[in-house]
């Protein structure tokens, strides 16, 4: 199986139109179609595009120089650095754990499997504030493990490890959730064939399973990354809000806003928004590929 993507697929523009639908599905009167399309466009424009445009307008309200100054401010740089580090850690951890989870849950049969599948979704259903508080209760100075850890010079909450832990918790389901349905659909036949032909478990995983899910995996990684960078609630609880040290970009934005530095706050916000836009474009490109590969 070749790992490289055919050139014509790679060159395909993002958001390509889906194959023409049968005529009977689109048989509503032209007027109804236009009203629905108009409403959807209006809604998107008002609720999504307008705020986004506003962020950038505010960010540049004092010109390029002020915009740049807000981003190279020492506290802003520290926040950007911490955000990138935390995102790298949580994406790394959740990619590995997501793969392990999906592999375990879809290729093997065991008791308690359905319970485990439910647990994967837990971080989505729990409020981020609670996700943060859980770590304070575990690793805080009054917590279960906190006193021992602090005595041994380990700082978890109110330091970067706590922020990373909370982010990993909140973003855990993204990769696993992308992989599980796809791997379930694919079944175990190809793996069984590989094992029959004498491949080891690791080789089967690397040469059969992984290539089969690579685009879905990348899609999950992108979503996980976007949420890692943007997470506010859980991180806010474990951060301690020490400027230049434990503030991530979303927290730094809030601080600037509360200090009447509106332009600076929007400048940092625009950087975060830009990351979201890049993620979105990458996601659209990926969707085109996945759709092409699996024909839906």
């Amino acid at each position, binding site marked *: 199986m070749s*790992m*490289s*993507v055919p*050139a014509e697929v*790679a*060159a395909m523009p993002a958001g390509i139109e889906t194959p023409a639908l049968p005529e009977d599905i689109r048989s509503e009167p032209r007027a109804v179609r236009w009203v629905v399309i108009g409403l959807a466009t209006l809604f998107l424009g008002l609720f999504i595009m307008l705020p986004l445009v506003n962020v950038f307008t505010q960010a540049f309200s004092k010109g390029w120089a002020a915009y740049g100054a807000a981003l190279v401010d020492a506290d802003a740089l520290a926040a950007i650095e911490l955000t990138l*580090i935390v995102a*790298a*850690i949580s*994406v*790394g*951890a959740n*990619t*590995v754990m997501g793969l392990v989870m999906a592999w375990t849950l879809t290729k093997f049969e065991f008791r308690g499997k359905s319970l485990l599948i439910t647990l994967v979704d837990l971080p989505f259903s729990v409020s981020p504030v609670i996700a943060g508080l859980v770590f*304070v209760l575990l*690793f*805080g*100075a*009054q*917590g279960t493990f*906190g006193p021992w850890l*602090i005595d041994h010079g380990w*700082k978890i*909450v*109110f330091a*970067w490890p706590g922020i*990373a832990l909370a982010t990993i918790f909140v973003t855990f389901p993204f990769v696993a959730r992308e992989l599980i349905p796809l791997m379930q659909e694919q079944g175990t036949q190809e793996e069984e064939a590989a094992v029959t032909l004498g491949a080891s478990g690791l080789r089967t995983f690397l040469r059969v399973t992984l*290539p089969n899910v*690579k685009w879905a995996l*990348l899609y999950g*990684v992108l979503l996980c990354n976007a949420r890692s960078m943007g997470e506010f609630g859980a991180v806010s609880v474990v951060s*301690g*809000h*020490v*400027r*230049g*040290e434990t503030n991530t970009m979303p927290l730094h934005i809030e*601080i600037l*806003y*509360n*200090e*009447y530095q*509106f332009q600076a706050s929007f400048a940092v916000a625009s950087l975060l928004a830009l990351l979201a836009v890049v993620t979105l474009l990458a996601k659209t490109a990926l969707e085109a590929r996945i759709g092409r590969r699996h024909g839906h």
Partner: protein
Amino acid sequence: MSFSFRRLAFAALIAALAAPVAAPQPSRAADVDILNVSYDPTRELYVAINKAFAEKYKAETGKTVAFKQSHGGSGKQARSVIDGLDADVVTLALAYDIDAIADKGLIAADWQKRLPQNASPYTSTIVFLVRKGNPKGIKDWGDLVKPGVQVITPNPKTSGGARWNYLAAWAWALKQPGGSPETAKAFVGNLYKNVPVLDTGARGSTVTFTERGVGDVLLAWENEAFLSKKEFGDDKFDIVVPSISILAEPPVAVVDKVVDRKGTRAVAEEYLKFLYTKEGQDIAAQNFYRPRDPEVAKKYENVFPKVDLVTIDDPAFGGWRNAQKTHFSDGGVFDSIYTN
């Protein structure tokens, strides 16, 4: 276009492996690091204090000291220090929040005796910030319960300023003809019926009122009210001084357990003493906190309006521990008026 998944996966793996190595805090050039965990409106004050102290310390000892600040609702900040936020000093909105930290053994119980004037180097009070021209005609506490007046104040459960607001309102109601704890409770209850949103800290409420334009009157720290006028211009807001308010004493303390572990006690103590010097008092006054030093106070006497001030040690309240227990603890008076 060659787009290799393997290469991408490799890059991601390298990034994931490299991150924990890169993550430990970069070494700082400063000889000493001091973390000041403070309440909401003191951001600007401590930026100025830290700068002045660092210069003085450098000139006197040749050593550099780097400051870090954390701000939030006073009660929330105390909770973070209790949970392990490594504050060398706490500069909070009211004594009870430092008592709460002391109760957990992080600060000596007699902390309020270690520095002059109840360990409060500056004071403040509660005033009203209204929209320019005072369109709702708000003159005193009694006007806040009128129908159609929206009052902005933070949540007394998490904010120190909000607790001072509440107690100032209580004190006014008590001093009215025929005033009693029952009439005071009814008055404060009516006041909170006019509050559309409870933010967690004073700065959140200020932003709600000034930037988001919600409400007719903000119950604010005097310093916060002055700062809002300074930030947004004199043509946006007016300050209304009520007939009675409360003497707010925001206290400071060294967190013994932290400074002894980090070996920063000497600098931390110097830092808090600096707040009482002429220079420190002058900076406080410039940031609209009422200075304690009589000479500095004289210099700024035209800035701060004269108000009839009740203290927390007034028999009506009986000190912070008592006031906290009666009014703000679970099942206290605030719970009974706000949930009904």
